[in-house]
């Protein structure tokens, strides 16, 4: 992917650029809002990372300008604030995702992957199928290898999220946001507990674990 990073802090910029470069992405950087806006409008990026606080033009104004100018490139906003109003304003302003500083690199990478390869405006699918698992979103049924698996609502939502993002690592935070609508980290291991219950139901009678754990990063559906 070609990724543009607009971040005024040199160290953070270098850290993100280095990591993304090592992961095989093409990275361009801008140190202020004006340069960032200029590069972003040139086009050709698959994703843009924008810091909320920037000298010149601030991050939020920059996103609004890009969206007003017709740029549809997915944008991920970074922020160092408490994060409630900034999140709402960022998303309302046209950002697609949002990450509060500090973040683990794996979190940023996972989110950029999810953004960059987002399928273009496709009608919501009714059925998902990955490897030998089929999930019917309307009837709310799951089958693995033809055998019916009964799941409570949260475990179903968790599996649907993983299957809706094949070949992408879903981090714990992403799952908390998308399945539980949490923008905070509960002290209780909700994600881990639900995943382990989901796993034991999916894997009953099968050799292969249906869900892969990517150490230090998150979870991924196997065989996507």
């Amino acid at each position, binding site marked *: 992917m070609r990724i543009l990073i607009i971040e005024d802090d040199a160290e953070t910029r270098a850290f993100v650029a280095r990591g993304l470069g090592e992961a095989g992405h093409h990275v361009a950087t801008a140190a202020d809002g004006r340069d960032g806006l200029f590069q972003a409008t040139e086009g050709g990026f698959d994703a843009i990372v924008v810091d909320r606080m920037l000298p010149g033009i601030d991050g939020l104004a920059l996103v609004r300008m890009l969206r007003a100018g017709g740029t549809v490139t997915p944008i991920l906003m970074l922020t160092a*604030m*408490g994060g*409630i109003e900034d999140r709402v304003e960022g998303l309302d302003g046209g950002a697609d995702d949002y990450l509060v500083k500090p973040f683990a690199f794996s979190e940023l990478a996972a989110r950029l992957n999810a953004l960059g390869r987002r399928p273009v405006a496709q009608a919501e699918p009714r059925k998902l199928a990955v490897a030998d698992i089929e999930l019917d979103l309307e009837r709310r049924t799951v089958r693995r290898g033809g055998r019916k698996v009964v799941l409570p609502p949260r475990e179903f939502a968790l599996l649907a999220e993983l299957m809706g993002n094949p070949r992408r690592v879903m981090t714990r935070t992403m799952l908390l946001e998308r399945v539980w609508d*949490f*923008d*905070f980290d509960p002290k209780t291991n*909700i994600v881990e507990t639900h995943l382990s219950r989901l796993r034991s139901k999916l894997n009953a009678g099968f050799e292969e674990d249906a869900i892969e754990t990517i150490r230090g990063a998150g979870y991924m559906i196997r065989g996507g």
Partner: protein
Amino acid sequence: MAVEGWAADVRAPWRSTFGLAGLVSILLALATLVIGIAAYEVTHEALEQQLDHRTAIETRALLAEPGADRLAAIAGAIRRREAEQSVDHLGYLLVDAEGRRVAGSLDGSVPASLGYEEFYRHGDARVSQSLTSAVPGGGRLVVAADRAALEETDRDLLLLFATAFGAMLLLGAGGAWTVGAVTRARLNRIDRAALAIIGGDLTARMPVDGSGSEFDRVSGTLNRMLDRIGALMENLRQVSSDVAHDLRTPLTRLSHRLDEARTAADPARAQALEAAATQAEELLDIFAALLRISEIEAMGVRRHFRRVALGDAVGDLVESYRPDAEASGHFLLDEVDRDVSLVGDRRLLLQMVSNLLDNALRHTPAGTTVRVVLDTLDGKVGLRVLDDGPGIDPEEAQRLFQRFSRSERSRSTAGHGLGLALVRAIAIAHHGDAGIERGTGFGVVVHLGQPRTDDPSR
């Protein structure tokens, strides 16, 4: 609540504007009444004295009538006077020593004693003011003045005072109402502005109409105070935002460096680096929690409030916690009314319930029952997370909602003592509050209100 509709539930009615103005008008009316009564008494007394004076002069004149036979001389004078039909309404009666009428047409009996007396007239059953005197050489002379004029004057006076009293009452009541209504309308505008400011809108100001009245002066002073508070708040926000940016940036770098170093290091060193990274993250967590509490306390979050199906959300949350609760040997009771809804921030409300559940599950031993109750009573949403665990010292409980305060029972477990401070901040942002629920074990009760949209003048 002290500010709620301050005409509806005034505890001391005489201290409200209407009350004060009404009190003044009643006092004025009473003063009018007292002055009226005094004037009436004085006038009445003066008129009576005038009547007495007239009878006295007449009596003296008759007794001084020349002639050797006193009775005959006086009788002659009386007859002359009665024939003249004078307009001064005096009546005469002259009797001899045996009590027989000698002259005078006054119809009635001679009073038993000498001096002034009310005289009852048989003819027209009216009362006159009479003076009875002894005639030298035997006999009595009675001169009576008609009281009709006095009574008429009394009636006129009473009518005048009654009218004045009534007018005073009416004017007073009208004045009280007008002053009260004007004052109240003005104070209501100030009240509304203040409520908006309490509600988080720091740009609201007291109304000033340029009249230069006392209200304008007070409003002006309050506005200058609000400007100052606004500037201080802005300053504070700027500082916390600077702190967030300036301190979190180096911490973020540190965290990133540790992240990178960990992947490159040998296993022994990686472990040390991992521990350091965890410490750095913990610091950053404290920062995040503090900044979040500050942001919620600034009330700006209210701008994004919308209707939340809280019953469903909390019910789902309890179910999400069930596996963990059961794994740690807790019993989780779901007493959530699924129909409860509220205007608020869904994620903040979820975080509040989640914090309370985290607390209850982490700080109580296995075998503890944790109840989550959500209901609506009198338009207020009540949320209770209660456990029957060992509980805590009641004195300690009071401090739990302050930042960084931790109870003795949680010293051994992880946490920063910010959880309940956050719970209270979220409750206050939702027009409510959080407190300790007394009973078995430990419990937190949160009341959430609806934003006040009613007009206080109604």
